[in-house]
């Protein structure tokens, strides 16, 4: 399969792993944060930790939009969908996220009209097809998915479609990275930059990390070879005492980003004063809301939204895991009360969440192969 197989070639992967072993100073410990949940998932899925030296440690970052969505927003969205005239449309990713009274899937089983869509424009198509009902799209994601929501809103406005609205939960990646870097208990050497987000925001958006925080950033693709090559690039920078932004994912990410996508986002969205991140708390100017000129399609303004704040269980240590202070298995609830089937904390919800990836792909393996560490 083109664009996949050449980046999974076993021989080349072994060569790259060999280069990493050669570059990694055994006396040193390298703490590399992969910001994006897609990278976390790939690192576990391809068993990459098994082939790298122990001195390389991956810290899983905040870049999983499902994981950072607070429970109150799910409850708010569901409160609208209780109206029988509403069709609740969302990505498949959101379906299992638990609200206080269950997930979207559970609400669908109880009779609520919840539809899985593959893109926001599919939700608009639903509105066309159901002129007597209201279609609400529960928008989620970083800068990766925000432009397609913006384009859909522009289309709805241009076509004058009134039975359609968006409940906007789009967030932006940089304030979360800033919050983590500002946190006193976090120690990181370098970042693997998010591939999909960067197709929109470009590489230059990360230059402040290199310049002011003196940490290398390498924007990376999602195949095993992409990630390994990015680690090689990071180690070379660290060994040379450098800190710069580099682009490993040149086949998809332009240095300056995607101007058209940024323009449509700016046309439709503005920054919220603050937004709650599950596991981290309120971060100022970290999320998008719909501009006044599109208020007629903004579910938050068209309908009464309770604006619920729901706190996670006290024992859950999602914040510490999100910032990389704790490993997933070090959380008291991990694998006990909190599992992918019954997620209590944010990171166990999506398959890209650090805890879910660790539980699904490694947890039991670790328990049997190194029993002394599981105690």
């Amino acid at each position, binding site marked *: *399969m083109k664009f*996949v197989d050449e980046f*999974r070639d*076993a021989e080349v*992967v*072994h060569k790259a*792993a060999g280069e990493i072993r050669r570059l990694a100073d055994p006396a040193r410990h390298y703490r590399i944060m992969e910001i994006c949940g897609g990278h976390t998932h790939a690192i*576990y*899925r*391809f*068993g*990459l*930790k*098994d*082939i790298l030296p122990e001195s390389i440690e991956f810290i899983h970052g905040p870049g999983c*939009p*499902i994981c950072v969505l607070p429970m109150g927003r799910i409850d708010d969205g569901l409160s609208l969908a209780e109206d029988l005239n509403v069709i609740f449309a969302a*990505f*498949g*990713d959101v*379906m*299992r996220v638990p609200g206080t009274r269950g997930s979207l*899937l*559970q609400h*669908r*089983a*109880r009779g609520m009209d919840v*539809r*899985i*869509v*593959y*893109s926001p424009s*599919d939700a608009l198509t639903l509105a066309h097809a159901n002129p007597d009902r209201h279609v609400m799209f529960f928008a*989620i*994601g*970083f800068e*990766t*998915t925000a432009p397609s929501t913006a384009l859909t809103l522009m289309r709805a406005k241009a076509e004058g479609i009134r039975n359609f609205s968006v409940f906007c939960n789009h967030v932006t990646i940089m304030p979360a990275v800033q919050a983590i870097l500002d946190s006193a208990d976090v120690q990181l050497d370098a970042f693997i930059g998010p591939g999909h987000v960067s197709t929109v925001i470009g590489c230059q958006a990360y230059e402040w990390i290199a310049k002011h925080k003196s940490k290398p950033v390498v924007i990376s693709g999602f195949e*095993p070879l992409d990630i390994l090559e990015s680690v090689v690039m990071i180690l070379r920078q660290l060994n040379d005492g450098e800190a710069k932004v580099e682009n490993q994912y040149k086949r998809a990410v332009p240095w300056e980003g995607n101007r058209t996508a940024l323009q449509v986002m700016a046309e439709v969205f503005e920054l919220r004063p603050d937004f709650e991140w599950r596991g981290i708390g309120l971060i100022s100017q970290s999320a998008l809301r719909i501009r006044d000129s599109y208020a007629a399609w903004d579910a938050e303004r068209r309908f009464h939204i309770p604006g619920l704040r729901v706190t996670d269980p006290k024992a859950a240590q999602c914040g510490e895991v999100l910032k990389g202070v704790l490993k997933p298995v070090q959380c008291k609830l991990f694998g006990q009360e909190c599992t*992918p*089937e019954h997620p209590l904390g944010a990171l166990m919800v*999506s*398959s*890209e969440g650090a805890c879910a990836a660790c539980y*699904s*792909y*490694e*947890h*039991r*393996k670790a*328990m*049997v*192969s190194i029993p002394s560490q599981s105690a």
Partner: protein
Amino acid sequence: MLQLRTPKGDGEHSEPVGLKSEARDSSPSFAVLLRDPQIEMAHGAGGTATRRLVEGLFAPLLLHSPSEPLADAAHVAVNGTRIAVTTDSFVVSPLCFPGGSIGELAINGTINDLAVAGARPEAIVVTFVLEAGLATKILEAEVRAMAEAARRAGVQIVGGDTKVVEHGKADQMYVTTTGIGSPLPGVTIDPRLVQVGDKVLLSGCMGDHGITILLARGELDIQADLRSDTRSVFPLVDAMVRAAGPGIRWMRDPTRGGVATSLNELARDCSLGIHLFEPALPVRDAVRGACELLGLDPLHIANEGQFLAVVASKYAERALNALHQTPGGEEARVIGEIHEQPAAAVLVTTPYGGSRVVDMLVGDPLPRIC
């Protein structure tokens, strides 16, 4: 439907095991462990929730020996003659999809449950639950598909039942089939016979059916040249049993929840580790592509015309040759091996020497976008 295997050759009685009054009185009472407050879609998805429902409610209250491993068909002795019994319901949307339809699926599914329990399918009874307003020509097409599938497999349809429910109380039509079969001589299927060093065989490519259905629903704007793999696997099972019967320890058709879920059940039942070698897993490019795009694992996708077998190492080549020489078995492969560790888990080793655990499916496979 997972059913309970009853102990083999346990006397002569004509009722299904567990319904004899003396047997019920003398059997210890088993606790109901299901704590879920209501039935969710996940309870029907074939993964962990289904298992919790069957083991936590149905088995303790309904079955004669709830602690026995679950199998695809039950073996019952009737006046000294052993027969295999199985039942399965089909609720599929859309009714027709590339490569098959609900009628064909209902017959092949029951044939396959009997086949992988080591039995030759003999007769099937059919129950229809029909929604008022269903077009007769749709029903007729499905009945014809059933007749054709039964004819092809040499199985008789010997009776049935019909119920009609109000419009809106069902989705067009549901079909339930119950089949009986005669155990094939020279083979015993039991997960507790599985040993370290045994080989895991898969009869062909995985995921064709599940991805075909996902795309046929039209919710995702993806097109692929794919067909459901629905078919009877009995000719393949029969050929393998003739060639390697004494070496065959376990079989299962990996329907809902896919290969990963079936193998996780086996791993739990035999308390051994199952190692799969990723490059050996047979997946068509169209299925792989769709899975990459949607964030799904082919190991979790449903199949309707494949089966898994665990075969003693020294019989593995014979079993594989028999499959390769039977029409439809050309793509069969050894996909893995039984190890001591990790106990009760399935491990996939990557071509790079790394590994990952593959768990049962939690709920339905959902496309991942953001």
